[in-house]
């Protein structure tokens, strides 16, 4: 059913643009699907001298569905607030994308790996996401839904417990569809 949106949208566009050589660009506000669901937040905790991996539960995102269209490229832009409560260390973020819930737990589902960032004390550190997704994920964006899961890799070399949460502040995917999407 979601695919009908794409049909309507593409038809609408085609009515007036004639498609031509222009591209269809879908700016998908992923954050709007995650906000307030709990999936936009990853709590983290690591004892002194330890590392830990933590993650939010997977979340379904509805998409228009691009059918047999060909995805040219997908770019992700976003910001994450690392709201640190105690301790110091580094936090790396991961975004997993898959066609189903279980798939987000597979290593191959790792779509975005944000380099580790240092945090310390009771501070909020803003981290940015800006990455071109691998072509291996292109086919996901032709479907009417995908699943997303956030993960955080925490390393605590300090002497006190590292604790806090990574809160997604924005995440926008720009999906560029090649011309002949019918």
């Amino acid at each position: 059913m979601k695919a009908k949106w794409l049909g309507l949208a593409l038809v609408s566009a085609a009515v007036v643009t004639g498609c031509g050589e222009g591209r269809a660009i879908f700016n998908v506000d992923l954050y709007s699907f995650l906000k307030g669901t709990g999936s936009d937040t990853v709590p983290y905790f690591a004892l002194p001298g330890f590392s830990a991996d933590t993650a939010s539960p997977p979340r379904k995102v509805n998409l228009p569905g691009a059918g047999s269209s060909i995805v040219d490229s997908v770019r992700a832009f976003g910001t994450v607030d690392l709201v640190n409560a105690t301790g110091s260390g580094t936090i790396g973020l991961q975004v997993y994308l898959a066609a189903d819930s279980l798939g987000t737990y597979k290593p191959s589902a790792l779509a975005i790996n944000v380099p580790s960032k240092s945090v310390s004390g009771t501070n909020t550190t803003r981290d940015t996401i800006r990455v071109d997704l691998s072509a291996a994920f292109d086919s996901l964006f032709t479907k009417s839904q995908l699943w997303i899961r956030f993960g955080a890799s925490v390393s605590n070399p300090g002497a006190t417990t590292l604790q806090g949460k990574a809160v997604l502040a924005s995440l926008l995917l720009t999906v560029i569809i090649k011309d002949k999407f019918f």
Partner: protein
Amino acid sequence: MRTFFVGAGLVALCVGCATAAGAQGWVTDARRIGLGGLGLDQGSLRRYNAAYRAVPGRAGQRGRPKLTIPIPLGLIQFFHDHPLSNIKNDPAFNHDSAGFNPVELLNTFLNPPLFLEVKKAPTPTNDVVFGIGKDSLRLNLGQTAKLVPEDQFGIGGSSRPLDAGLSIKGVRVGVMGWVHGELGFQLGDKLLGFLRDSVPAAPNTRYNIPGDAVFEAGFAPSIGYAGRIVGDSTTGLYVGGAFHYYVGLAYARVNGDGGFTTGDSIFSGPTPVKLDARGLTQYSKFGNSVGHGVGGDIGIAVVTGPIELGVGVNDIAATITWPDTRVDSALYRDSSFSKPVANHIETKTKLPVSYLVNLAYTVGKTTLGADVLNSGRGTTVHVGGEQRVGVLVLRGGVARDQRKRMEFGWGGGLRFGGLGVDLGFWTHTNSLSNQRGVTMATSLSIY
């Protein structure tokens, strides 16, 4: 699902460019194309002005061809590019092909490739941006949003594909075939805002396109008169008129409204959008009881030396009564339903009144002319002229089409005895573009 999109896309594309299709007529005579659509000869004038059956050819006019045959250079090119032997697998026509582009297909429909397209109108190339969120959808068409029609748009008009008869002393008895068809649409306010003004889609909102279509056809036994009532062959006043008894063979009318309604939320709900359509059809099939009605044409022409002026009006008071029509209602929402509303009822239709006002001025080997034509759906204006130089004729003209766009024609011809070859170029906007294309027409005339 792909078929659904392709089908819906084609329908919508037809809608979107129907205006363009109707903007210019379908002309197969390269001479007329070279004149920018202006009909200077009596043959084309008598279609709309009954008096012209009596008006003699202008001085210096090379005579009216007995037969004009278009030379289909466009078809040769078309079949070279799209061989019939491989037509099923041709990406241009196979919607399952990755190379299928409905725009190209519709441009082919809008610009039938009879003549050579020497300059294709470029289709818009800017990107189309969709903004998608959990509860939002926004479409930004950029510059191409200007092409979204704000007013009602459509194609239509009446024509007379057959006109045979015998004339004795100005009195003519004959029979003509007649066809009347119209197709009109108008984007609903919400859809117009979504497409043209990039207004975000709202939940629980219907986006629609109301439309209507009518088609009727038949024949009409006619009796008429055309003759000069004052003056002589160089200066005279001509009048003409015809009375038609219209016999309708088939009729159909559809009043419909198609669209979609958004759900409680744009993308997060189980049913983000529901397609729906509803329509009322009225029809009298071919072979059912015939329709009938009366109407007439009148015309007047004044010839005074080199100047010729005419006014013709056709299908005056032509109301057809269809004594046995059926009315059905149809509804689509998840699945389609249809039920009869009424049967064996009487319906009346009205043929559009068409008119032509024309002016021609001939001096020496030069003829200049202009006309204003309305054949039922919008007015077109043509201004043009031709200059004869020995066996050569040079032509040029401009037209304002039904979309109020200026179009240009130019060309020439050669005549050797009873044989003439003509070449005409004509700009057009019959494509999904806001720029003009150029068609080159070629035809052979036998005098």
